């Protein structure tokens, strides 16, 4: 009961945001086009955030995801510019993600460095590496194969009105597939359940014989690959690669997971909740821009609205605990 109300409280907050924009932007906000648009805009963040959810299920963090996204993007672009094929370039970028993630896993689970410190250090390393690979500047133009850039512009045709085809954007599809996969992994496999066990009580998990080190390391590797995928999506969307373009994803991804956690039963990070968190952030941006709120004021508003939405759930949780 209590938890239902709590989740309800936070959902209420999110619903209120949507209703508010719907009311104020009656013509444009609640349209399929706008929502498809939003879904495409958030697709990269969604991939990073669900990947982040995997490590946060273990109560860990990965601060290096943004830098890894940037690195994967420039690595692929660099290889394209040296004549590699699309498949090979993508594979190499994903391998970089896997290696970087495995490095994080090794430092954290193998050496025993705190995740915050380890991934802060690798964030610096990946970011510097992205600068070195790209020479610090944007790789674009003929260096990027047209198909690579076109991918992000394509999508699955949904319907046609007046000769204009509405599509489910390709990036949205990729994000949904990855979210679905990670949902399966976290919720429906013993692997995922053990990650939650580690997050719930690492000592208990270890005493019970869970191979904590191994699971932690592998989860970080997963997250590295997720970040690399997001970096490739980003590069495809902007049809270019810049050594800092993914950096902003990190804090937003963490924010989305935390926002989502206010929706879940025990405050656990969950894939579906994270997606709700991602959409909350995106809808705020989209709606406030459409309402043409000054960008500084809208920045303040985003902060205030998040506080209000989260307060609802925090207060109702307190109530529940008390009564």
């Amino acid at each position: 009961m209590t938890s239902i109300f709590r989740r309800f409280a936070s959902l209420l907050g999110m619903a209120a945001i949507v209703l508010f924009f719907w009311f104020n932007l009656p013509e444009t906000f609640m349209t399929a086009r706008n929502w498809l648009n939003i879904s495409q805009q958030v697709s990269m963040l969604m991939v990073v955030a669900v990947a982040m959810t995997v490590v946060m299920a273990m109560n860990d963090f990965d601060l290096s995801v943004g830098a890894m996204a940037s690195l994967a993007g420039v690595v692929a672009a660099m290889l394209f510019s040296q004549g590699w094929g699309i498949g090979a370039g993508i594979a190499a970028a994903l391998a970089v993600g896997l290696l970087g993630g495995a490095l994080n896993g090794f430092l954290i689970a193998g050496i025993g460095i705190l995740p915050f410190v380890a991934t802060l250090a690798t964030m610096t390393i990946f970011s510097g590496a992205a600068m070195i690979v790209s020479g610090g500047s944007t790789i674009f133009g003929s260096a990027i194969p047209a198909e690579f850039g076109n991918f992000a512009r394509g999508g699955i045709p949904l319907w046609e009105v007046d000769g204009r085809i509405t599509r489910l954007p390709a990036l949205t599809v990729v994000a949904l597939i990855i979210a679905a996969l990670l949902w399966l992994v976290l919720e429906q496999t013993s692997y995922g359940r053990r990650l939650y066990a580690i997050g719930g009580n690492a000592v208990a998990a270890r005493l019970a014989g869970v191979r904590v080190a191994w699971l932690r390391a592998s989860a970080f590797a997963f997250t590295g690959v997720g970040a690399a995928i997001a970096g490739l999506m980003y590069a495809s969307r902007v049809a270019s690669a810049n050594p800092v373009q993914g950096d902003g994803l990190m804090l937003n991804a963490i924010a989305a997971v935390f926002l989502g956690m206010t929706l879940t039963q025990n405050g656990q990070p969950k894939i579906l909740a994270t997606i709700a968190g991602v959409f909350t952030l995106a809808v705020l941006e989209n709606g406030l821009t459409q309402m043409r709120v000054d960008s500084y004021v809208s920045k303040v508003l985003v902060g205030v609205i998040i506080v209000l939405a989260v307060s609802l759930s925090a207060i109702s949780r307190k109530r529940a605990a008390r009564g």
Partner: protein
Amino acid sequence: QTVAVITPYLAQPGTQFYVEAFNARAAELGWDVSVVDTAGDVGAVISRIEDAVIQNVDAIVINVDPVQVGAGLAAAADAGIPVVGMDAGNDPLLAANVTSNGYAMAAETAVYVADRINGAGNVVMITFDPFPPVQVRGVVADAVFQNFPDINVIDRITPDVSDGGIADSRAKMEAILTANPAPGSIAAVWAAWDQPALGALQAIEAAGRENEGIVITGIDANPQAREAVAAGGNFEATVAQDFAGIGRTAADTVARLLAGEQILTQNVYVPTVLITAANAAE
């Protein structure tokens, strides 16, 4: 008529000025302008362009490397909404780009440095390649210095600009000064824009080496830099971009497009002026 101005760089002094001028001209023309700052996030510019397209604005103005926001430009093109660059860059999907000539500005300050040190000495370069308009300046300065056999570029720094560009440039310059303690071991600092030039100036003054004749140049002629140049210290030259002119011209260019005119040359250059102690006060 509604126009959306979208930039990740509103915190930069230059951007401020042309956005202001743009707004002023737009007010005269009776437009309804919304300014969106994505605070350094280039990818978000695409999202905001898409949002503007959904709102069905009449024109969009961007101040970002157009190559990186191609998806947004494509969305605008699909909807038939013209996009004008304000100190942006080149892209086929851009109706026009109003800017200063970065190659020319860098050539002016680099040649100023070479002349002042008589074609010989150690030079520190402060550049920033991730941002295309600034990146081209480094390329030109490199070429100029390479052409002088006795000029030696001893360090090429990329400062962390997330603090506004002054503080980290200053810390880096302080370390370079420490590493080169002999008077005369650094002849000049060529900075690709004013903030790092100011940081270098502060470092030189704090180290008590303002009398060694180290020449500093910047680009932008932002008011703080203008003051420093006028004061007659080490910061000797910068280039005034006509930011207000860029903003005004961008607005006029949008007006021409809305009137159905075709813009022939994609780059619309607004003239610049070299600023030294002689003309800094103007």
